[in-house]
């Protein structure tokens, strides 16, 4: 109902009355919600503690939604406090800064602050304790335009500090008109008091930050939403705002999840964000109170986002409190600072008890979005007991702030019915956990939805990829078809030209001439590589010769393909035969013949590196196969060593195709020899053979250096093999 009244044109028309209602202090309600015990007293009455510098800081390069910036520093470099470590080279990037001065130890993957505990690229910083600042250039609000402000916000690395981490400069750099700027100070999750303390201690700075946001967005009114269980913070904010007439501090009833973006919008303005749109589409921008504070620091002090207030709570701590923590501080240091006494099967939660995730180990660093570290005892937050059957009691539907039907979603999630999931608006689930909280059967509903959502995302990605693949496949087919057609056309033209020529001159002589030309052409082509041959051919003016050259080229390619097929067939045959040990030698001999001749042929007709490579690969493959079938354990290493050496030498030699072919032949011979020796001779002998083989090869190679390397490798392998044999 509220939806139809307050969107689009209606929304603009009904503005005055709505605005009046808001001015009068009216606060609305949203569907569902729960009242978990808040347990905020643990930390809300104590001042914010400042933690001493930890030994190491682990700074993930990406701590927001978007892409990481370009790395600016190298391992070993010394950095100053506040120095940017990455460069925001596009609008989706947000830089990270050195939280203190020190030395960059490494830039490596490190367990990230993510439920998956997967490693992310992280910069490891060793603080030097000097706290040396880089040069700072504070701005004044009056002296700069919006562009400067937005750049400063981006350069200072500010991303939504309420939990999502959306880049702030994108959210504040909108072009649409903004009616309401909502400052989210609700902090509805149990335990967390970071924003509460921030407001108690720094309300003035926050309001300065809001002033900057107002300059950027120019809203009609600023609504600051605070839950009614934070009276001190609300009073502090009220006092700080007293000079601004369009700033309204609104207390909302304590109910979870009133701090959700959509829920708070509904609470304060009675508007709903239409499905698939953003709040700014209905003239609302929401910023977290911590973000406002960070903006003020960044603009007015040129103090980038280096630290944040983190609530450290739970009964396993002797001193639960709010701590001003440097970004990158490992959770273990933070917990130890607060007197952590771990239990067996301890849970450590990053974030609140409703939406936070458990950490797999404590080396995870605090990032820009970390508002709470929770280390509860088992009695305090009992682990979920066994999941039971759903009794369709619908408590979940009553608690759902998005008015979804969680049990239907559960049903379809289990059935992986993506169509039905879409129909029941799974995408609108904000994963607040209210449904799972009230579920009497203790079904981990949110977990089911997350899996289903990930699955849906993956499906969409797959579908997109399939579409792209199809487009690429079709484009490729079209290209191949076009090329074929072009070739056909050219051939036709050539044929026509030749016919004309034939008509012009005497028939027999022309043919003889053409043949002569072809031979000359072939001879020329053999000197060049395959590609240049084709090019020269197509560029040449003698049309008939060209055509034959192309034909010859194609014929050659076909021939090559056929040979490759043959060789492959032979190789398969070899494998089969190799099973019977006695037959191995004979078969290798057999195969050697066709490939030998092939290599010779190729070197005759055109220069062919490929042939050499093919031969080398075949030699290697055969050697490998022989090794596989060998009964002697020592043999494989040996044969392998030899084969690879040969292959290498050959590849190196490939400038000279003839020699390459020779080398290939030698390789085959050696493979054969190896097969023989492994049946009869001792390992030491084999090693010696390898050595000689390598040496002789070195003589063959055009590049003695490369051959030497190959020989060295062969020797090393032989030695290794001999060692393993001895031990």
């Amino acid at each position: 109902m509220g939806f139809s009244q307050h969107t689009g044109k209606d929304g603009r028309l009904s503005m005055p009355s709505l605005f009046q209602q808001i001015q009068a202090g009216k606060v609305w309600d949203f569907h569902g919600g729960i009242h978990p015990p808040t347990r905020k007293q643990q930390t809300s009455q104590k001042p914010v503690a400042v933690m001493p510098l930890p030994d190491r800081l682990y700074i993930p390069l990406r701590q927001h939604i978007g892409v990481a910036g370009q790395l600016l520093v190298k391992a070993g470099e010394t950095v100053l406090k506040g120095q940017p470590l990455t460069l925001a080279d596009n609008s989706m990037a947000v830089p990270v800064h050195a939280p203190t001065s020190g030395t960059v130890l490494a830039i490596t993957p490190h367990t990230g602050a993510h439920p998956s505990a997967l490693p992310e690229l992280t910069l490891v910083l060793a603080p030097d304790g000097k706290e040396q600042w880089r040069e700072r250039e504070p701005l004044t609000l009056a002296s700069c335009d919006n562009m400067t402000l937005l750049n400063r916000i981006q350069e200072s690395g500010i991303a939504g500090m309420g939990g999502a981490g959306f880049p702030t400069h994108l959210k504040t750099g909108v072009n649409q008109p903004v009616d309401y700027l909502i400052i989210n100070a609700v902090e509805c999750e149990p335990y967390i008091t970071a924003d509460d303390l921030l407001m108690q201690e720094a309300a003035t700075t926050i309001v300065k930050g809001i002033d900057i946001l107002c300059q950027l967005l120019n809203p009609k009114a600023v609504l600051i939403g605070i839950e009614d269980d934070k009276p001190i913070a609300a009073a502090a904010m009220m006092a700080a705002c007293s000079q601004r007439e369009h700033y309204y501090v609104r207390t909302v009833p304590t109910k979870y999840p009133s701090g959700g973006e959509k829920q708070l919008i509904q609470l304060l303005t009675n508007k709903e964000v239409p499905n698939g749109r953003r709040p700014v589409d209905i003239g609302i921008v929401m910023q977290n109170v911590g973000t406002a504070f960070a903006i003020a620091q960044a603009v007015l002090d040129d103090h980038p986002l280096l630290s944040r207030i983190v609530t450290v709570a739970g009964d396993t701590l002797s001193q639960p409190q709010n701590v001003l923590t440097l970004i990158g501080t490992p959770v273990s240091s933070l917990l130890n600072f607060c007197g952590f006494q771990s239990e067996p099967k301890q849970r450590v939660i990053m974030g609140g008890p409703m939406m936070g995730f458990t950490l797999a180990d404590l080396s995870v660093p605090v990032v820009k979005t970390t508002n709470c570290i929770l280390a509860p005892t088992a009695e305090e937050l009992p682990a979920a007991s066994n999941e039971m059957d759903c009794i369709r009691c619908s408590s979940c539907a009553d608690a759902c702030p998005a008015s979804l039907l969680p049990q239907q979603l559960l049903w379809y999630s289990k059935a992986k019915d993506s169509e039905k999931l879409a129909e029941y608006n799974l995408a609108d689930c904000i994963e607040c956990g209210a449904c799972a909280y009230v579920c009497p059967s203790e079904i981990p509903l949110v977990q089911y939805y997350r899996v289903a959502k990930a699955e849906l995302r993956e499906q969409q990605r797959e579908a997109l990829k399939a579409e792209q693949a199809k487009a690429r496949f079709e484009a490729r087919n079209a290209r191949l078809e076009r090329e074929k057609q072009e070739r056909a056309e050219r051939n036709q033209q050539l044929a026509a030209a030749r016919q004309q020529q034939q008509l012009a001159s005497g028939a027999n002589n022309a043919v003889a001439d053409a043949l002569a030309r072809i031979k000359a052409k072939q001879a020329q082509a053999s000197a060049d590589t395959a590609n240049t041959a084709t090019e020269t051919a197509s560029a040449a003016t003698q049309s008939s010769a060209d055509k034959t050259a192309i034909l010859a080229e194609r014929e050659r390619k076909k021939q090559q393909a056929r040979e490759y097929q043959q060789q492959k067939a032979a190789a398969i045959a070899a494998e089969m035969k190799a099973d019977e040990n006695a037959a191995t030698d004979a078969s290798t001999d057999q195969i050697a013949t066709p490939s030998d001749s092939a290599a010779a042929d190729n070197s005759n007709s055109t220069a062919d590196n490929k042939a050499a490579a093919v031969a080398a690969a075949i030699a290697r493959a055969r050697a490998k196969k022989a090794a596989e079938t060998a009964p002697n354990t020592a043999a494989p290493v040996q044969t392998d060593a030899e084969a690879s050496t040969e292959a290498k030498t050959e590849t190196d030699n490939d400038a000279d195709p003839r020699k390459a072919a020779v080398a290939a032949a030698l390789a085959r011979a050696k493979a054969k020899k190896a097969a023989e020796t492994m049946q009869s001779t001792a390992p030491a002998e084999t090693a010696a053979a390898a050595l000689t083989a390598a040496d002789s090869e070195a003589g063959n190679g055009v590049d003695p250096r490369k051959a030497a390397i190959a020989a060295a490798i062969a020797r090393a392998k032989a030695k290794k093999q001999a060692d393993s044999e001895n031990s």
Partner: protein
Amino acid sequence: MSFKIASSPHQHNQLSTAQIMRLVAFACLPGIAVQAVLFGYGVIIQLLLAIVTAWCSEALVLKLRNKPILPRLKDNSALLTAVLLAIAIPPYAPWWIIVIGTAFAIIMVKQLYGGLGNNLFNPAMAAYVLLLISFPLQMTQWLPPLSLQSVSLTPADAVCAVFSQYSCSGFSLTQLQSSIDGITMATPLDTLRTDLSRGLTLDESLTKPVFFAFAGAGWLWVNLAYLLGGLLLIQQKIISWRIPVAVLASLFVLSSIASLAAPDTMAGPLFHLFSGGTMLAAFFIATDPVSASTTNRGRLIYGALIGVLVFLIRNFGGYPDAYAFAVLLANMAVPLIDYYTRPRTYGHRTRSER
């Protein structure tokens, strides 16, 4: 020490399925007590029989299905089914009636559909209908309330009656059923139906001793006791107010209109609300979460549907009381109701707005 990986939320409220089921069963206690006092101790024997049968059959099927037995017995759902069936049947019905009924409810209606949460029909009511159709005689042998009984029964008599159909002093059930003046007593609803079909007017019929004030003697108190239990459940937020209110409201409205239109043949709203199993059904049976509608609007429709069906069957159908039938018919409509009463999701338009 290792760190435990768990999915959020990490906090749960501690009201479990087993507790909900137990609370509903406890809320039946006032009604059961009144029933035992006014209609004899038979109901307690029936209760014991039903619970034992329910546990046994549940355990048997779970074993056959290779499911863990103890955790599922502990969810108290079989217990609740047994309780509801036991208080719905006549207190002195022969023992095998309740055994067959409970076993059918648990094995056929609940477990064969997939166990707790998967059954389409209310197990207790499906079993009741089975018994009513299969054993109509035994299922209508309600004794008159204590005040009208010619022979008063001791607890020992109750045991004898249930197991042998004769009291320990040798009275047959038919003899027990007759009142002080020797006339065989039926339930008030039954009596009214018979009288009306014989051409008596409502007022003439209501003068009979089986009626008391505006409802049946004894039945008024039983209904009031269940109403009390039901209100407790609503207050504890165990059940939603929507279903009982919808049932009672639709029955009230329809019977008011009917009694205004035909005062001689149609009983008034108070008679309907406080006779038979109205309150038991409205608060305890129709609210069974598994087989009831799950959306808020759906619950109102579902409840109203039951009220309408009860009214129709009581006045125009072949049975004096109709809750079992009404509930089963409404159960069948639940998937449809649920589908068409989905709430509007945040940020989405409603079906009509689209």
